[in-house]
């Protein structure tokens, strides 16, 4: 039942399959169920979808049976079989459907896993160019949005429920009146960036045609205006630039967090890591500096991209342009040099040389929050470096209508204020919340006679509009979209709309009227029937359509290439930014522009760098904080470093706008710069969103959408409790993360024969019990230290002439003999193991959300996070090396830590009830139903990867969440320990599959959820007993080491040290 053996299937979408749930949702019983606070027996839901009930539900009642509350048979459950069973469905076997998740007009292809008609997990679509099988944290977590109980469930007119038919009729009448008025009153449609061809065509070709007075405006706060404007400056048209990192040996990022934010981040991370591979080449050679890419980053706020950079220069965001001009000049673009700091000059000198030495094999990429000039400069540099057409590919824009959104939006508000707009249809956006502070959208809205809001939530905008129509989630309806390179992506529904929502396509189709196709499926199919990309041969549309649905993409539909060289002439003249504090606004790494604020998975996801959860903050550098007297008090109470930080509050003043917010001190941040993430501080976000963070839109003006200068900040004397899951960032000389440069790697490999090729540099921790490499290596077949049972003890060395030296006798060192009385177990059968490549990991945390979705991990809330009780089974530890106040020379390390599945697991030996023991294939099993909750195992886990249900963390009450849960994983009740299991449910399913058919499990057949999600490909999983397994080739790398392996825990998870490729000619940090 794993994905690799399962062809994604197109669902049978005759109404029959979905009718059950649709009708059910209308039934009073269901409504009762949803509204009842304490459903007595949520399993007895008379519904075909839950017919197999949710296996996870009865944990509590069963456990209570144990103490005699109900000594009678475990449970007498009712069974509700189908009346007519859908043909392709087999109970208990998941189906995968290709679909897509859209944000900012760009769609990433997904495979949605469905169990008994419920989507339970989203995975990347390997055929999709933006995904290639991986997924980012936000797309992963969008599953939870669908099941969000706070979603709007009705269609209302001025707060009063109306039906769909009434709504459509009334709206049509109203629009018709506006149309026929003389002169016709203006009608406006406001959407976010639309990349969906079907929707675009619906708006442009049908709606706008029917209503000539109508206009379509797109606006979203985290828009790509600067990118488009920059492209226009360089090419005269808004081309869509796609980068090919698989060929780029040198990369310069100008404030671009291209690895974790923006279109194609998943694909770019994948591509970037193709060349960021420290694995030995043929003949056991360390890759040379020319075989590995090198990343230079100039940015203000430390990002995931900056975290993995080989060289990073921290400057104010506003100062990037000046540096960019000088670099551009250096690489030969036709721009003028401008004055920059001495340090920056030194820094870019070698950078420029390096770039010049890699013409056609480099990329310069600029961030979305940089002004158009910087984008134009980046294009100019790429042009000068000969990258256009090799690593930098320009395509026709993928937006249906590329516009300058901020300007359009301002214009719209002006029209509205003037009272000329008769009707405004707001579809899927929340401008009341997201409009810049100097654009009073809310007030302007009052002057519009007909306001219609379509959205998934009854949000701030819904409250101000006459009409509210609840919108479907993308998993509930048909749709299409375009990948970052323009490839058309088809989105299938996985379930009938849970709350009877309607899709924008449907709404517009009804408003246009006189259409034969009113059903979203018909609309999308109809559109593509007409617009199927032309190809040489004649196409049977139905077959091609079916195939495209299965693949999730329409083949060969990427947007057309634009072959133009950039022109540096249009780059506006340089004006030096004023000195002093700047405020940089950015979309939040988890909740983006605020639309996911009610998503618990994203709220609780520790942000890649700050590790903050549930809040945003004014992020400043240590020096700036010192200057203004801000500090963070790690409280000695509660979670402390592991959750509880009391930050000073400050008030920032941007022009005449003020905002009070907490200050977070971030090493690596540029001085005199403040970063604030958008999206928090919503009034009507929902239960989860309530009371979290500070509204950055309050200080965002249309003139300074991303970057404001002349900002003032002053402490207010108040404090604010922030929940950061990791405040301690030093390694304390312990080196949990081992790292080095390519050069050091090579040198050490030469010198260290004694350690059988292990790189001592990466292993500077004093031995505690036995040498770490031994305990790791003996598990690896083919390694010189492979366990050979008793023979290993009497190992007699065949002396050759060259190895008479003392240091060649490593294995005679008594310390090198494993100090254990217990011989290794589990030598036969499967031995599951994992390796994590720290060179590749950029801390994006997609693995964390994937794990939450796969393993039914509860969200605990801010209060519990501040008490150190977050439940993530895999956490990404983040360390800094270097001085906190020297941002340019601060090295950041990311280390994902799941359960290490130790062979001699310290947790097991201390459990008094054998609730955690080893399985025959070497997994550290955690048996939730046996656990009595002594928490001793957690104490004894040196990695601290065990998580405890201190309170009832799992949500047993919300019905929609019950639908979402993975039925293959027990939902843990209060008082039970839990932890990473290597996704044992996947291993067991594959095991049953292989046992049933009498074949072996193939390498790569089982992928863990974290591995599957990881865009960087930093995680590999497989069978140690399969000598050809990829995990074994990883583990034989000299950089392989076990975290705390010196404790003799013999972890099955090991790490490959982070190897960087710094430029040896770059200026060294002071005092180094």
């Amino acid at each position, binding site marked *: 039942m794993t994905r690799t053996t399962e062809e994604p299937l197109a669902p049978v979408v005759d109404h029959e399959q979905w009718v059950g749930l649709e009708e059910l949702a209308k039934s009073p019983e269901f409504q009762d169920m949803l509204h009842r606070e304490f459903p007595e027996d949520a399993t007895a839901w008379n519904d075909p979808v839950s017919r197999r009930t949710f296996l996870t539900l009865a944990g509590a009642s069963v456990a209570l049976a144990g103490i005699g509350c109900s000594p009678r048979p475990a449970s007498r459950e009712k069974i509700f079989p189908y009346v007519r069973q859908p043909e392709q469905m087999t109970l208990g076997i998941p189906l995968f459907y290709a679909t897509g998740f859209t944000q900012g007009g760009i769609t990433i292809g997904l495979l949605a896993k469905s169990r008994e008609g419920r989507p339970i997990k989203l995975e990347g679509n390997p055929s999709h160019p933006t995904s290639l099988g991986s997924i980012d944290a936000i797309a992963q977590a969008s599953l939870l949005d669908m099941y969000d109980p706070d979603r709007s469930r009705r269609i209302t007119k001025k707060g009063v429920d109306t039906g769909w038919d009434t709504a459509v009729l009334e709206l049509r009448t109203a629009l018709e009146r506006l149309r026929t008025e003389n002169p016709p009153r203006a009608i406006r449609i406001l959407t976010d960036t639309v990349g969906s061809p079907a929707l675009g065509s619906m708006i442009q070709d049908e709606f706008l045609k029917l209503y000539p007075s109508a206009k379509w405006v797109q606006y979203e706060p985290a828009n790509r205006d600067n990118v488009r404007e920059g492209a226009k400056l360089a090419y005269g048209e808004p081309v869509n630039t796609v980068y090919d990192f698989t060929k780029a040996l040198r990369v310069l990022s100008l404030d671009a967090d291209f690895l974790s934010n923006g279109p194609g981040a998943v694909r770019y991370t994948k591509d970037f890591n193709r060349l960021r591979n420290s694995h030995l080449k043929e003949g056991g050679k360390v890759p040379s500096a020319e075989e590995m890419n090198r990343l230079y980053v100039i940015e203000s706020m430390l990002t995931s991209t900056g975290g993995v950079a080989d060289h990073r220069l921290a400057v104010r965001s506003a100062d990037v342009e000046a540096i960019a001009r000088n670099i551009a000049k250096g690489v030969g673009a036709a721009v003028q040099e401008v004055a920059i700091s001495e340090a920056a000059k030194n820094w870019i000198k070698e950078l420029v040389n390096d770039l010049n030495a890699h013409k056609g094999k480099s990329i310069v990429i600029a961030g979305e929050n940089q002004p158009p000039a910087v984008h134009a400069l980046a294009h100019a540099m790429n042009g000068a470096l000969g990258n256009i057409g090799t690593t930098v590919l320009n395509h026709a824009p993928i937006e249906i209508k590329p516009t300058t959104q901020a300007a359009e939006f301002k214009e719209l508000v002006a029209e509205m204020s003037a009272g000329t707009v008769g009707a405004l249809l707001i579809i899927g956006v929340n401008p009341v919340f997201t409009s810049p502070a100097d654009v009073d959208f809310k007030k302007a809205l009052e002057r519009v006679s007909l306001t219609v809001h379509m959205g998934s939530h009854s949000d701030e905008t819904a409250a101000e509009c006459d009409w509210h129509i609840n919108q479907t989630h993308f998993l509930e309806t048909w749709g299409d979209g375009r990948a970052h390179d323009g490839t058309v992506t088809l989105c299938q529904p996985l379930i009938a709309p849970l709350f009877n929502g309607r899709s924008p396509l449907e709404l517009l189709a009804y408003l246009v009227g006189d259409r034969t196709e009113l059903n979203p499926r018909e609309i999308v199919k109809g559109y593509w029937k007409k617009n199927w990309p032309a190809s040489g041969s004649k196409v049977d549309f139905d077959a091609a359509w079916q195939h495209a649905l299965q693949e999730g993409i329409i083949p060969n539909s990427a947007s057309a290439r634009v072959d133009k060289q950039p022109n540096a002439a249009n780059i506006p003249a340089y004006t030096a930014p004023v000195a002093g504090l700047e405020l940089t606004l950015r979309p939040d790494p988890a909740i983006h522009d605020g639309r996911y604020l009610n998503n618990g998975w994203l709220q609780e996801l520790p942000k890649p760098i700050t590790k903050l959860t549930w809040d945003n903050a004014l992020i400043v550098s240590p020096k700036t904080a010192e200057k203004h007297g801000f500090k963070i008090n790690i409280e000695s109470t509660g979670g402390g470093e592991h959750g509880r930080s009391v930050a000073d509050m400050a008030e920032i003043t941007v022009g005449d706008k003020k905002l009070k917010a907490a200050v977070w001190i971030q090493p690596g941040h540029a001085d005199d710069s403040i970063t604030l993430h958008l999206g928090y501080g919503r009034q009507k976000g929902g239960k989860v969103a309530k009371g979290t963070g500070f509204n950055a839109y309050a200080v965002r003006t249309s003139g300074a959408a991303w970057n404001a200068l002349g900002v003032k900040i002053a402490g207010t004397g108040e404090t604010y409790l922030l929940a950061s899951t990791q405040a301690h960032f030093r390694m304390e000389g312990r080196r949990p993360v081992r790292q080095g440069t390519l050069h050091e790697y090579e040198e050490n490999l030469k010198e260290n024969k004694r350690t059988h090729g292990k790189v001592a540099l990466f292993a500077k921790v004093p031995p505690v019990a036995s040498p770490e490499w031994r305990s790791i290596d003996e598990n690896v077949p083919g390694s010189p230290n492979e366990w050979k049972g008793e023979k290993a003890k009497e190992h007699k060395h065949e002396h050759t002439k060259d190895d008479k030296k003392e240091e060649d006798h490593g294995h005679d060192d008594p310390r090198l003999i494993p100090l254990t009385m217990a011989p290794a177990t589990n030598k036969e059968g499967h031995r599951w193991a994992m390796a994590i490549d720290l060179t590749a990991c950029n801390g994006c945390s997609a693995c964390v959300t994937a794990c939450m979705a796969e393993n039914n991990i509860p969200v605990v809330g801010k209060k519990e996070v501040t008490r150190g009780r977050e439940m993530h089974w895999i956490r990404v530890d983040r360390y800094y090396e270097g001085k906190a106040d020297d941002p340019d020379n601060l090295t950041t390390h990311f280390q994902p830590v799941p359960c290490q599945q130790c062979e001699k697991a310290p947790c097991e030996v201390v459990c008094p009830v*054998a609730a955690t023991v080893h399985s025959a294939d070497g997994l550290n099993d955690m048996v939730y139903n046996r656990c009595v909750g002594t928490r001793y195992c957690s104490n004894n886990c040196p990695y601290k990867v065990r998580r405890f249900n201190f309170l009832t963390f799992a949500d047993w009450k919300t019905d929609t969440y019950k639908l979402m849960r993975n039925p293959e994983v027990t939902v843990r009740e209060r008082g039970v320990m839990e932890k990473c299991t290597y996704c044992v449910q996947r291993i067991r399913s594959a095991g049953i599959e292989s046992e049933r058919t009498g074949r072996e499990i193939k390498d790569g057949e089982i992928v863990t959820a974290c591995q599957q999600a990881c865009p960087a490909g930093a995680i590999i999983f497989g069978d140690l007993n399969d000598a050809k397994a990829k995990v074994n080739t990883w583990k034989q790398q000299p950089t392989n080491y076990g975290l705390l392996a010196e404790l003799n825990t013999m972890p099955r998870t090991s790490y490959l040290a982070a190897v960087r490729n710094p430029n040896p000619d770059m200026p060294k940090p002071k005092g180094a």
Partner: protein
Amino acid sequence: MSAPAKGSKLFCLLAEYDNPEALVVAIKRAKEAGYTKLDGYSPYGVAEIADALGFVKSEMATVMLCGGLVGATSAFCMQWYLNAVDYPLNVAGRAVSDPIGWLDSWPSFIPVTFEGGILTCALSGLFGLLAVCGLPRPHHPLFNAPKFEAATRDKFFLTVEANDPKFDLNTTKEFLLGLQPQSVVEVPE
């Protein structure tokens, strides 16, 4: 307390002393006189009285040793059987599939073995003591005797039981009165 009612069976004769030394002398004399069903009563344990009675070594040590050994052995065997034979689980690599090899982790079983031994030893001591002494016996003929309550306070008593082969009410009473008691009373059954 009045003299025993006529017709009721006699249990013993009870002689009262106010110090242990006198009681010891009296017991020795009675033993010499050939009485066998003798007992001495004191408010606290006096070694010489038991010695004089010829009860030199008690059996309790054996009882408790056996109890302790049984407990310790069964505790060890229980652990081995439950964790190695009945459901041998691989705990932190400290187990191998064969039950004998599993004994390699015997040090882990010592604490429970020890505690098991101590527990059964103590319990066999308590219940053994009660059983061997014929306790609990809240009702006893001696409690019929007047003044016997002083046996727990400050008096020392000698009893010659009526079922002693040499017992004869009058001669024995005479004999006892010759041992300088503070009083001699007849104790009915």
